[in-house]
């Protein structure tokens, strides 16, 4: 069994044992050698004679080989294609051979200059708010924040080097939001063309970069002689930014060379091993949780909510009684007695009209107004659609497993819970360390984790929460600066991840203007079995922005 995969434990014994055998069954060395020899023969200039003296294991293989070589030869002399003489791979190779690349925006009002050393796997960026120095090989990212006067060592989220996309990611991330270096943009399309300017020919490569629903177009002009870029254009939704590319012999060796004061001490924010384990669970369980339909209600029975999730798609509906004269069904008083009786809720669902509040089609979240008008609320970005905290944080799996990453603006302390926490829990205390003038989503977040539930969150306190103007507040009581929720009656999803079926919202402010606070309890009935049709996540024609 894979030692680091607790999920494999959840598979039936028969499957787990079969997988172990598949992994451990040895291949025939003769067969391996036969294949490798035949493959190496492809690189030989005299393949046909080798094929004769040492026949390939399959006749069809030799036939394909001849065809392949013919295609390669024709391609090499340009008979089958009219593409430019420089291919993108040549440019990549040329850039990897230079000690440093320096990218400077032509618009002097943009403060963003970056240095890249492909061979050292180092990225240095100087921008308006400070600087970043990323050593991919060491897995370290040192961030200098000029505004906060801080210098922090944080983890490198994902190694992307030497992928060429990294260059794009750095440029685009820097242009959009300083400090966000690896942003997950991917090249989804590319083409090349030859252009002539004042009698001189250049090669231009046009790349389409995509991150969820965000598409950027990048144009790179390349000198055909050196095969190196001379400038790059990044075209987003609203503007195009040009960067000139130069190739200095030397570049920044550390964060201080990028402008950080030498007397500023580096604060180490690399997570401890215990914290790493907890963060790993928080960051994976949300995604592995599984697909479901959930009926949500409060103790008064109305209003009800219906939530459906399928991978990265989800939908949140408000349930409105079809019988307007009877806003509260007679038997909703049974609610507390029938918690867990899923069939009862399924039967009652037909008594309600469903009014969408949010629909996420996997790339974009659409919000629906009370009048049923559709508005594009948020496009995908960051790690994924889960980056949209204000629209995913009402999913029940988010309560138990809120994805969370370490950054320089917060400290993370993990230890035994204090006296006000549930018995036996650990407390993950996340506190902002930047001045209040810095706009943050929250100033402090306290998560009480239960080791018996594989570190699921059982209590969640958010202080200084600022995303208060949430249109279409799905529960109708999330507009609080300080929020405290307690979770109970845990069950397990089919994937083995615990989730609460009861959520206690503490001290919810009253919306009737009296200023009184009270507690609300919501109940979640999850159905993991009923198939959810794709049509649920479609929103039709272009929405209004």
């Amino acid at each position, binding site marked *: 069994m894979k030692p680091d995969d607790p999920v494999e434990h959840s598979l039936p014994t028969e499957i787990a044992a079969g997988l172990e055998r*598949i992994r451990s069954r040895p291949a025939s060395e003769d067969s391996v050698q036969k*294949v490798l020899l035949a493959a190496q023969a492809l690189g030989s200039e005299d393949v046909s004679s080798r094929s004769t003296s040492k026949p390939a294991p399959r006749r069809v293989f030799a036939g394909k080989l001849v065809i392949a070589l013919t295609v390669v030869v024709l391609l*090499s002399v340009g008979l089958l294609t009219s593409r430019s003489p420089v291919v993108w*791979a040549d440019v990549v190779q040329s850039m990897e051979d230079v000690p440093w690349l320096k990218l400077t925006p032509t618009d002097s009002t943009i403060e963003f200059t970056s240095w890249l050393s492909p061979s050292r796997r180092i990225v240095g960026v100087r921008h308006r708010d400070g600087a970043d120095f990323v050593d991919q090989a060491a897995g370290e990212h040192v961030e200098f924040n000029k505004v906060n006067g801080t210098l922090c060592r944080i983890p490198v989220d994902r190694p992307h080097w030497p992928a060429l996309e990294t260059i794009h990611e750095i440029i685009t991330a820097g242009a959009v939001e300083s400090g966000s270096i690896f942003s997950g943009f991917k090249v989804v399309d590319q083409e090349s063309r030859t252009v002539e300017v004042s009698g001189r020919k250049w090669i231009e490569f046009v790349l389409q970069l995509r991150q969820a629903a965000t598409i950027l177009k990048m144009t790179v002009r390349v000198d055909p002689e050196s095969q190196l870029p001379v400038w790059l254009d990044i075209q987003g939704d609203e503007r195009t930014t040009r960067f000139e590319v130069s190739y200095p012999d030397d570049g920044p060796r550390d964060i201080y060379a990028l402008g950080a004061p030498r007397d500023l001490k580096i604060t180490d924010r690399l997570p401890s091993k215990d914290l790493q384990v907890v963060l790993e669970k928080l960051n*994976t369980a949300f995604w592995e949780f599984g697909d479901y339909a959930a009926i949500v209600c409060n103790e008064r029975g109305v209003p009800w909510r219906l939530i459906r999730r399928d991978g990265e798609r989800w939908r949140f509906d408000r349930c409105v009684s079809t019988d307007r004269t009877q806003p509260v069904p007679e038997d909703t008083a049974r609610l507390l007695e029938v918690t867990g009786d899923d069939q009862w809720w399924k039967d009652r669902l037909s008594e309600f009209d469903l009014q969408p509040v949010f629909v996420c089609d996997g790339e974009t979240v659409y919000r629906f107004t009370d009048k049923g008008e559709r508005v594009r609320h948020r496009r995908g970005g960051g790690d994924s659609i889960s980056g949209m905290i204000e629209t995913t944080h009402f999913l029940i799996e988010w309560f138990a497993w809120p994805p969370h990453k370490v950054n320089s603006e917060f400290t993370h302390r993990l230890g035994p819970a204090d006296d006000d926490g549930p018995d036996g829990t650990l407390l993950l205390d996340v506190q902002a360390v930047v001045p209040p003038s810095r706009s943050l989503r929250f100033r402090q977040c306290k998560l009480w984790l239960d080791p018996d539930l594989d570190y699921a969150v059982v209590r969640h306190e958010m202080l200084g929460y600022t995303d208060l103007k949430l249109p279409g507040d799905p529960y109708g009581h999330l507009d609080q600066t300080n929020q405290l929720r307690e979770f109970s009656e845990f069950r397990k999803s089919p994937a083995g991840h615990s989730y609460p079926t009861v959520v206690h919202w503490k001290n919810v402010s009253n919306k009737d203007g009296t200023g009184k606070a009270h507690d609300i309890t919501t109940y979640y009935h999850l159905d993991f079995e009923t198939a959810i049709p794709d049509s649920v996540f479609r929103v039709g024609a272009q929405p209004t922005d």
Partner: protein
Amino acid sequence: MPSWNDVVREHGPSAYRTAWRILGHAHDTEDVLQDAFLEAHRSFCSGSVRNWRAFLNQLVTYRSLDRLRRRKQSIELDDLLTCDGRAGPYDEAVAREAEARIRACVAELPERQAAVFCLFHFEALSHDDIAETLNITTNAVAVALYKSREVLRGLVLESAQEEKS
């Protein structure tokens, strides 16, 4: 830039292993590898590959899954010749049957789910490595992995019930 022989020498054995684990059949593995290397060599000549490990892994995984879907499920003599000798003939036959059932179920999975499942459970790759290999996000890996396990669990149970009946 590595030479073609470097590519074959460095990444060929792991590519073979990937196909072998998915197919469990020497001749099929050889066929898939031959096709895959032909395609890889074309890419080598065009210079379009930056990460050979990921490229070959993706290519071989998808080609192997194609072959797995097409072939007749059977246990052939040459497979038995690679028996590791740790189990008796009966146990060996039972174990091979279980493996064949898993592979048959994998063949029923949608393409991406099957690829993610194989790279995770057969090759023990991390989520990040799978994402890089298949050019998808780590979140997509997690989702595909979850779904593949669910489907597989159901298919294996279904298959076992059919046998009993």
